[in-house]
């Protein structure tokens, strides 16, 4: 067991972890942030995506000890201050069906749109190509992002 401290969604948190504890499990089971989801456990599906110092990472591939002293943002952090502009467009476009991929998808897109505020459709597809969604066929998600970009 080792004590690590990091900023989670703007708040300093400390937690005891084993050297082989995954960030995903620590966030979910020890810190109670259930927004990153387990989907595959090997970085294929993107449902566990969180931001590490503002950069999207797969929390199922990161050891918790690696984030000691760093900054983590999850969908919970993004949603805390009320709906973001992007989320409002998701709402308008019925962008999710079962919703299980939503946390990873939104985290990925929030980061991407900060870096590239005026993307074209191909760039948006590229940006979410690591986030699997089995329900929507991606079209309603892309529709929401393009509408958001157009009206920004």
């Amino acid at each position, binding site marked *: 067991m080792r004590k690590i401290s990091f900023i989670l969604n703007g708040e300093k948190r400390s937690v005891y972890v084993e050297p082989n504890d995954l960030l995903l499990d620590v966030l979910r089971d020890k810190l109670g942030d*259930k927004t990153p989801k387990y989907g*595959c*456990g090997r970085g294929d599906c993107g449902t566990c995506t969180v931001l590490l110092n503002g950069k999207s990472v797969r929390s199922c591939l990161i050891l918790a000890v690696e984030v000691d002293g760093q900054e983590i943002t*999850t969908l919970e952090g993004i*949603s805390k201050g009320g709906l973001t502009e992007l989320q409002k467009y998701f709402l308008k476009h019925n962008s999710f069906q*079962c919703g299980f991929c939503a946390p990873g998808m939104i985290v990925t897109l929030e980061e991407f749109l900060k870096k590239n505020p005026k993307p074209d459709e191909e760039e948006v597809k590229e940006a979410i190509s690591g986030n699997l969604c089995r329900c929507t*066929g991606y*079209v309603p998600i892309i529709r929401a992002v393009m509408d958001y970009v157009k009206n920004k």
Partner: protein
Amino acid sequence: MEELKFVGKDIPRIDEKEKITGAARYVDDLDFGPNLLYAEIVESPYPHALIKKIDTSEAEKVEGVVKVVTGKDFPFKFGLYMKDRYIFAQDRVRFVGEQVAAVVARDPKIAQKAAKLVKVEYEPLPAVFDPLEAIKEGAPIIHPELGQYSHVPWFFPKGGTNIAHHRKVRKGDVEKGFKEADYVFEDTYKIPRYAHCCMETHISVAYYDLSGRLTLWNSSQSPHVQKALIADALSPLGITEKDVRVITPYVGGGFGGKAGVTMEVIAAALAVACKGNPVKVRWRRDQEFYNTYMRQQVISKIKVGVKKDGTITAFQIENFWDAGPYVEYGANVVNASGLSATGPYRIPNVKIDSYCIYTNLPAAGPYRGFGYSEMLFSVESHMTRIAKAIGMDPVEFRRKNAIREGDSLAYGAPMNPNGLIEAIDKVAEEIEWGKKEESKDPKKAIGKGFAIFWKAPAMPPNVSTTAFLKFSGDGSVNILVSGMEIGQGYHTAMAQIAAEILTIPIEKIRVELPDTDRNPYHWQTVASHVTWASGNAVKRAALEARDKIFEVVSRAYHFNKDSLYLENGKVKCYLKPDFELDLKDFVINGIMKEDGYYVGQNIVASGQFFVDFCSALQDPETSQGGHPNVHYTVGAAAVKIEVDKETGKVKILKAVEAIDCGKAINPLNVKDQIIGGLLQGLATALYEDMRFDKNGKILNPNFTDYKIPTSLDIPEEVVPIIVEVAQPDGPFGARGMAEHPMIPAAPMIANAVEDAVGVRIKALPITAEKIALALAKGEKEPDYYWHIMK
């Protein structure tokens, strides 16, 4: 007809806010406290073996292990349609991955470590993985006791063989039909196994409290059926249905994989073994591939007779389904698709043999389309080939033979009202059927493919659903139902139906996720029937509430009930135009009369829908005489593709799909179902493929090797089209449509590939490799190859 204000409108999903903020809680997100225990399953490494001995002593010694459970502890069977499976393997295992034992521990890592210490001694038996091999004389018999299994009366297992069910359909005289034909076309098609790949894996947390109450939190499409089946399985321990409670929060995708009971019964048994502690069983992604009823593979031998003018005179098909070693749910897939194996065609002479066959691959069963996605690949590939062979346009051929209202189905009942011809015409127009297109790149060829489809909800003939409706003091409404919102937009549709009757805004309605203690009975969320069945129940509940509202107001104000109506959530009176009473003013607290006394009642209502016009008791030799299906939803679809003649890679330039959903309660949701389902289907057509090694082990149980589509794989353009020919007994005319988008995907791709490059692929998936190899070798009809590595 009066204009509808909520039904038929693009109303945003009522569950979307929870999903986009991360507030939506799935089973694994619920907190079960520090007493939660974790299970690790010991799985069979053999496809077929006798269990000689299990030694759990080393595992039990590990600190933190609470219990080690084997088949001896729970020698009980479970099953919805046929009881052929035990909770844990008893004397033998029948597939790689079968549950032999479970270790329950305080920590998941301890459970994993201890599970490795469980020693199981096996005596391997010969295994069989090919349904055609499995029905040969001398094949290893997978269930020696098959003749004694209890099952529904519409299954016909053959004891002493590996045939778990044989659905025969005989109509007219097929031999006479072939004699009348000018041409007879025969071929064989092959469809492999596929996986649902819900983003959320299966999970069940079970808690058997000290009083003997068993509560389960499941990711499920079937809370009430699970309650019944789990109580039944554990009944030797004295557990009854009143003791079992199933709670189903948000579900991360279903597609049929979370129907019936699979792993939930394991969690239930482990909870009973560890009384007083909740126990969590969650599949890892690889376990999800092995243990969730993947889609069955099928070999289709088809023979069709036609006249020169394109009239179909005879249709014969033998479908050999590989359902794995436990077929109880899969046998119903075989049954349902067997009854409808002609596809949506009018055919006088029909002979269908649909076989459900035991093999030693993992158990298979329902997946979006319930057999129709599989069997219509052969039918719709074949119909295009026939049309071309007799010099007829494939769309014209379909228009000529398409089934119409009142036509006799293969089992004799009449076809329901439908918009199949309208769907064909709209799709043909949108894809510009008949217009030849050349690629600008000489290395590439453009082709178009067409397919029609149908599907009936596959259900027992007596399924039932109920809705409860209750008001709060501010006039807002909670609707309690037990259909599952698995992503299809069911809750939104139910809110729209209630809003339409009660004239209150959607924002004032909440539809609740099931808890079998609180929400009324609904059979299962399968078969694409909830909008139709549960929609009827919700509509009736809203009508009952409206009636009670009018009753109260008429008593308080002495209006004739018939003179009252609702508008914008207010009661109004035709005879007194200035009268207006808001629901919030009386639905809980009643109406005060001049003398200070109150008139009223707490407005609550229920609505019920029961299928009482079906019968599955037909002549087993012909399937004539019953009415096994409530109705069919039909449609048509087409693609325009570009094929790279060197690499074989297929690019979808445009996909069009029209579905007759009777009435689109929410057109936006219907269109999004079409878009999402179509992509799921196109992936099974083009690249998804379950591979096994020669011992029945899955070679690709992960998303690296089993490829599901990403955002880069979507067609350049998708056009969803809604056709609305009302279902007479549907709520506002609606019938289900969510499974259907997937069904035409594979044959229309096969048809388009042949149109583009002249290669007819008869075995799914239609990979770039298969096309490129056929082009390189100059083979127009390459032979199919097997999905088991030899």
